[in-house]
């Protein structure tokens, strides 16, 4: 039976967050940022679509900050 899987590909919430966070955290590789953003996107998949970009970006920013501390 095929399971319905939500697309976690490069949607708006991932793209916009990745671009901004890459500028904000030049010391981190683009690959690490994308990984964190995608994980956040996956964890927040039940959230309302309109709120998703902001939620993903805030959570990813928080995690990236912690990783640098």
């Amino acid at each position, binding site marked *: 039976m095929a399971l319905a899987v939500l697309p976690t590909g490069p949607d708006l919430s991932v793209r916009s967050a990745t671009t901004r966070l890459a500028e904000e955290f030049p010391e981190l590789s683009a690959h690490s940022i994308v990984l964190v953003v995608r994980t956040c996107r996956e*964890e*927040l998949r039940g*959230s*309302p679509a309109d*709120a998703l970009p902001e*939620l993903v970006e*805030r*959570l990813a920013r*928080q995690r990236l900050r912690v990783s640098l501390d």
Partner: protein
Amino acid sequence: MGYVDVSGVRHTLPDGRVLLDDVNFRIGEGARAALVGENGAGKTTLLRIIAGDLVPEAGSVARTGGLGVMRQFIGSVRDDTNVQRFLVDLSPPAVREAWDALEAAELALMETDDERGQMTYAHALSHWGDVGGYEAEVTWDTVTVAAIGIPYDGCKYRELSTLSGGEQKRLALEALLRGPDEVLLLDEPDNYLDVPGKRWLEERLLDTRKTVLFVSHDRELLARVADRVVTVEGGSAWVHGGGFVSYHEARTARHERLAELRRRWDEEHQRLIDLVRTLQQQAANSPDMANRYHAMQTRLAKFEAAGPPPDRPPEQKVAMRLRGGRTGVRAVIAEQLELTGLMKPFDAEIWYGDRVGVLGANGAGKSHFLRLLAGQAVTHTGECRLGARVVPGFFAQTHAHPEWQDRTPVDLLWHGEPGRPGVDRGRAMAALRRYGIADQGEQQFRTLSGGQQARFQILLLELSGATLLLLDEPTDNLDVLSAESLEDALGAFEGTVLAVTHDRWFARSFDRFLVFGADGRVYESTEPVFDETRVQRAR
């Protein structure tokens, strides 16, 4: 379709009196039921039990389809509640809880922006979506536009106290009628609405497919909307399955039937007592009769244990005696009168014995006009005179007497005031009894119900010997019976009556109408005019 099923409900007051007992009725299938009863009969308590605010001492209330409640205080909200909070509070419990959780999460995030807070916020947001929060916000937008002409985003932080009573009512009604709840409890939904507002309410209630239980004293609204009438009286409730038009006959017939059943029970009771006495004497002389005597004793005991049927409820006795007296033929003369900033100059002559309804737009100066005639300071130009022997008596809306709030009716009657001599305690209590407020004689005025305050004010008019009655919305807080009693008293009053009213039923008893138009024009009409729109002022 939603319904409310009230079964065997009993409620006792803190002083031990049983207010409601064995209340049984079911309202469902899109019925529009009016809940009526005298002031203090227990209508609001019953509504609170149905709404779940009070737990009944016995019995139960079953509901399906979600319950929306509009409370009586809506229209007089003066605290800092804003439009958003107000609409949330009118929403189903799931939406309210999700909103509260979302708000708490937002506040927590403002305090500490950490991962835990962000996940809580994200969950609260998802839950808000799951319970239909976004759909609710779309509905709120429609509601605010319909009620006050402003989109939700433009007014959600606006304090409710900046809206008029009518706007507050309309906002609540729009929200409930457009909301998902299938059963609505509306406690005096028409208060604070002007006549176009009441007509709008009637149309909406006639259109809705929801089940509605509403309390109202407006006889026109009751007659147009209610398809059944639940009456709270005599400590219980009964349902008339027809409309308000046939209600009085049904109530009288029911009272007669109850009185007849009670009379038969009393007769049978007396017959059994007599039989037991006879058999007791016979048993003393004949042992054979002893068995019959004991059997009859048992039968009497069982009969008494079953108890009598409910008695006919006591009628509320309100006997208003407005006497008045002969005055000059011309009772009121207004020449080029203009209440500054409220209207264009107008002339009017009101004759002794006239019954004049003062109608028109809210904010057009009707109440100010009455206050001017009552001798109060109202800025004006032109002239306004009272005729010979005309003594004005003024009935203000009930909140207009802050100086009475901490005094008791007996005290107010005892001391009198200029133009109204004081009366001794005996006379005061007799007068209060006639107005059905003797039990409240020693209570502070502020603790009386709206209807009791209104009746007390009419009593003061009676004692003042007024020959010109100036009444500002006198039926607003009166129950149906008291309003009818006031109409009878005004019919017998020898003198002139001017009354500001939005009560269409009451207005029909007047002969002439002075209409204060929204455009500032004051004109006479032989028919009641109720479609003057509200005066627009800068807000």
